[in-house]
């Protein structure tokens, strides 16, 4: 191909309007006569609602109406959970506005509808709600005891228990034998703190009910799923709902949800017959948008004295929060397949119990289940190395799948198509200067330097491209995992690409243009990518789980292939040749063995005019394709962090961060690089900065960006990134997915590095985030209990 767009560092098409302020975020939308919403939220984590008096609020200046739970209960069904992981799964009904009881602080109890946002907020204070406080359960291990119930009506805090056992599944040996016969047994408990996705754009919804259809603009990752779910839970025909996700200011899984606020805005618009807008404040976002992680991981790892792992037993408690989010219950299950990571474990057992607490609900957050799993196993590999006095890299090498062993079926039952852990690791070690840093570490220990050096290692793989539909079905996920695309050839020969996967910062417009430019031999500039509107992109399953390119991009390529096939028929007709003799390359259709050729643009115009087409040929070249892959894709990588720990203050700083990621074939290296950087920032944030903290009453203490520490530019290091390229064999492009890699790998790299710096001082573990006070406390505790210094 002459264009060779794939692999080229194209600057993004989507930047032009974003750098000039011509953005179309939902909150920028204003419609004539639009009303504004403000939510009355529960200050209590758990309470009976004994009365809601809205009289004063209704007569407040500018207020048009006030909705309570009782007002809308008949119209709005329970908000959806699409992943009943077991047939017995328990879940409380989740009303958009609470009716009798609230189960977390921040739950909506009434909605003010007013002529201005300020008037709506003024009236919030005037709603008089009487609560009868109930006991709260906040801690996961307490919740498991069922002594205090988050939902008394449910009779238990346990939503579901899900088990995978390699002995039963036939993918490995029984775990009991491995643990009982272990030469070395490592047992650890890790805490995955609650994180808040913290997309920069607060959630916002605008609803216009004035047409025959209800139009919903929302800051969502999932316009197609949202449309379906609004239709199902509001009992209105799907065809009467149009969802548009315009510019969306980040998601990270946090906008992979059907929110009460979206449903309420639809209800408010229906009640008033006027356009309505709701935009949350950041405090509301932190309190009431879904959180992520929140697991207790209990692990047992058995190994030989040589450091060969013989078995892994994982027992999880997963915090669902007060209600089941859209895919919340399945998040730990995604992790279940990743605890064995890149290693050849002969025996494996996983058991997870999903529990309710009186906290904000949890759901997907960048990586969704896989960062938790990777953290746990990478911490365990370091613990094993420490136990045996081996270099942590050596332990990994002794257990990982060798390059020549692919494809490899894992103990968790997945088939890894390709990978080369040796190559990525070798490259990372070289860039990092591993040996020199180890030597410096020894010097600092010997001189009792107050600033100690640690080296953090994390090797990982992840399952990307959420699909295949049949696998998701086997896991009881309610939907498929396919993606849809349409390639339209305009009369001028310009191309419109419609994709079901919509962007919230990932650069689809640029990458998809590159794909199509190569495939159809048209200039990059002549491709327009359309997405994020269910009226334009009629089918789709949206954006999450690094599925955009590996599933959505493949659908685009498949549709483009069909365009070529259709155009060949016209080309043969116009050039009076046999279809079998038509060849397509670089945007031109030629007759084999002749100098006769015609360009795609000429065929497009001829097809449009339709004056001279083959008999029965429909006069368009447009093509649809739906792609459902045969397997996930498995990017991998090796991340190395040099960490300095000030033993006098507990301060942790990242001196050097090197990562080598293998994401298969890269369409746009610029975009890939950017995704890695952003992912690293989020993973490092879990290791060092972020945690959603509740007080004993269940009030979110980290309720603003003053307390919830999203790292800024001075808090993060310069990253050294590189790639190896082992193509995936499960899609025609060989791409693997990159969105979550940085997040998954960096958290254990950092924490392993922190521990490596202070392990010789007697510190065995530090809970995340490794804040100065936690690190300092761990050092002090080690001194008290007979640490070295």
């Amino acid at each position, binding site marked *: 191909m002459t264009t060779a767009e794939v692999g080229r560092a194209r600057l993004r098409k989507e930047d032009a309007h974003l*750098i000039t302020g011509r953005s179309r975020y939902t909150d920028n939308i*204003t419609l004539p006569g639009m009303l504004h919403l403000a939510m009355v939220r529960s200050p209590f984590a758990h309470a009976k609602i004994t009365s809601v008096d809205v009289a004063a609020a209704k007569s407040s200046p500018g207020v048009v109406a006030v909705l309570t739970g009782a007002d809308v209960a008949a119209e709005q069904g329970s908000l959806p959970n699409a992943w009943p992981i077991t047939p017995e799964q328990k879940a409380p009904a989740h009303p958009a506005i609470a009716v009798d009881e609230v189960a977390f602080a921040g739950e909506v109890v009434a909605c003010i509808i007013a002529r201005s946002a300020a008037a709506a907020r003024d009236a919030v204070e005037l709603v008089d709600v009487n609560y009868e406080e109930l006991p709260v359960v906040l801690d996961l291990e307490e919740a498991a005891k069922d002594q205090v119930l988050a939902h008394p009506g449910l009779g238990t805090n346990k939503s579901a228990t899900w088990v995978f056992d390699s002995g039963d599944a036939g993918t490995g040996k029984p775990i009991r034998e491995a643990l009982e016969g272990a030469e070395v047994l490592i047992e650890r408990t890790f805490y995955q703190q609650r994180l808040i996705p913290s997309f920069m754009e607060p959630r916002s919804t605008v609803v216009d009910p004035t047409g025959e259809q209800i139009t919903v603009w929302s800051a969502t990752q999932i316009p197609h799923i949202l449309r379906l779910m609004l239709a199902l839970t509001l009992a209105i025909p799907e065809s009467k709902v149009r969802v548009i996700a315009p510019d969306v200011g980040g998601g990270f899984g946090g906008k992979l949800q059907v929110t009460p606020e979206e449903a309420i805005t639809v209800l408010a618009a229906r009640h008033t017959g006027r356009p309505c807008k709701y935009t949350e404040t950041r405090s509301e976002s932190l309190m009431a948008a879904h959180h992520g992680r929140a697991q207790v991981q209990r692990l047992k790892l058995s190994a030989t004295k040589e450091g060969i792992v013989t078995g892994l037993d994982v027992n999880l408690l997963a915090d669902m929060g007060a209600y089941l989010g859209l895919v919340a219950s399945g998040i730990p299950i995604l992790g279940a397949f990743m605890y064995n990571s890149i290693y050849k474990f002969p025996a494996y057992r996983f058991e997870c119990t999903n529990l309710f607490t009186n906290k904000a609900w949890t759901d997907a957050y960048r990586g969704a289940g896989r960062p938790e799993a990777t953290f746990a196993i990478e911490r365990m590999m370091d613990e094993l190395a420490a136990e045996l006095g081996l270099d942590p890299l050596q332990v990994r090498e002794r257990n990982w799948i060798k390059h020549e062993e692919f494809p490899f079926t894992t103990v968790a039952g997945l088939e890894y198509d390709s990978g080369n852990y040796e190559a990525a690791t070798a490259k990372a070690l070289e860039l990092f200067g591993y040996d020199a840093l180890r030597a410096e570490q020894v010097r600092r220990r010997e001189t009792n330097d107050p600033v100690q050096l640690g080296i953090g290692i994390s090797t990982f793989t992840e399952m990307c491209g959420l699909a295949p539909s049949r696998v998701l079905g086997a896991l009881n996920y309610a939907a498929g995992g396919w993606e849809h695309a349409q390639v339209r050839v305009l009369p001028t020969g310009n191309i419109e690409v419609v994709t079901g996967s919509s962007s919230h910062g990932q650069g689809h417009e640029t990458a998809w243009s590159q794909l199509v430019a190569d495939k159809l031999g048209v200039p990059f500039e002549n491709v327009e990518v359309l997405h994020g509107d269910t009226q334009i992109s009629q089918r789709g399953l949206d954006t999450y789980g690094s599925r955009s390119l590996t599933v959505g991009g493949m659908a685009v390529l498949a549709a483009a292939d069909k365009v070529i096939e259709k155009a060949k028929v016209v080309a043969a007709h116009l050039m009076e040749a046999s279809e079998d003799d038509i060849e397509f390359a670089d945007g031109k259709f030629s007759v084999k063995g002749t100098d006769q050729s015609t360009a795609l643009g000429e065929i497009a115009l001829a097809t449009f005019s339709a004056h001279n087409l083959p008999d029965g040929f429909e006069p368009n070249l447009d093509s649809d394709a739906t792609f459902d892959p045969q397997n996930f894709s498995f990017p991998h990588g090796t991340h190395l962090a040099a960490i300095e720990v000030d033993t006098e203050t507990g301060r942790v700083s990242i001196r050097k961060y090197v990562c080598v990621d293998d994401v298969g074939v890269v369409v746009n290296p610029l975009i890939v690089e950017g995704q890695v950087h952003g992912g690293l920032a989020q993973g490092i944030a879990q290791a060092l900065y972020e945690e959603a903290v509740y007080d004993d009453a269940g009030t979110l203490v980290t309720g603003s960006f003053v307390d919830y520490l999203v790292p800024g*530019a001075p808090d993060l290091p310069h990253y050294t990134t590189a790639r190896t390229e082992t193509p995936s064999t499960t899609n025609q492009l060989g791409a693997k997915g990159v969105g979550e890699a940085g997040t998954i790998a960096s958290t254990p790299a950092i924490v392993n590095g922190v521990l490596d710096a202070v392990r010789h001082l007697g510190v065995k573990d530090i809970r995340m985030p490794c804040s100065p006070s936690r690190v300092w406390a761990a050092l002090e505790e080690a001194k008290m209990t007979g640490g070295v210094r």
Partner: protein
Amino acid sequence: MASSTMITIEVDNVSYTDDVEPRLLLVQYLRERLGKTGTLIGCDTTNCGACTVHLDGVSVKSCTMFAVQADGHRVTTIEGLARDGKLAPMQRAFHECHALQCGFCTPGMIMQSASLLDENPHPSEQEIRDGLEGNLCRCTGYQNIVAAVQAVAEGTVSSDSDETETAGVA
């Protein structure tokens, strides 16, 4: 309802005279009254910096000022940064260095970055990072934002607004 006050503000080289409530924030005035929706609101505690604009040439967070406080002053928003159809160097640099992804923090980041270089035309990497402390980004990990500021400081941004290809950043 609160009383209102008459104010006159020059925004992006146009003078506006308006009656506003004293409690109206500058960012609300810009967005809701003038339609300058490029200036965005990401938090309610002045931490995120998405609302950063220039007041008499100096960066301020427009969610931390009342519109009445800007009376008699000159405001530049992201919409006013490009001149005569040409992008400002910092806008070009953000594009060329892939210093944005979702774009939500971008207007505030660009305004702050431009102001940063006005104060210190040749900052070190650490000075750039410190100068961006009040602007949060969740997508980029900051590395390419820092690179964009460096590119402007070093004069390595392309001199026109043509779509150019980069060999990669950082």
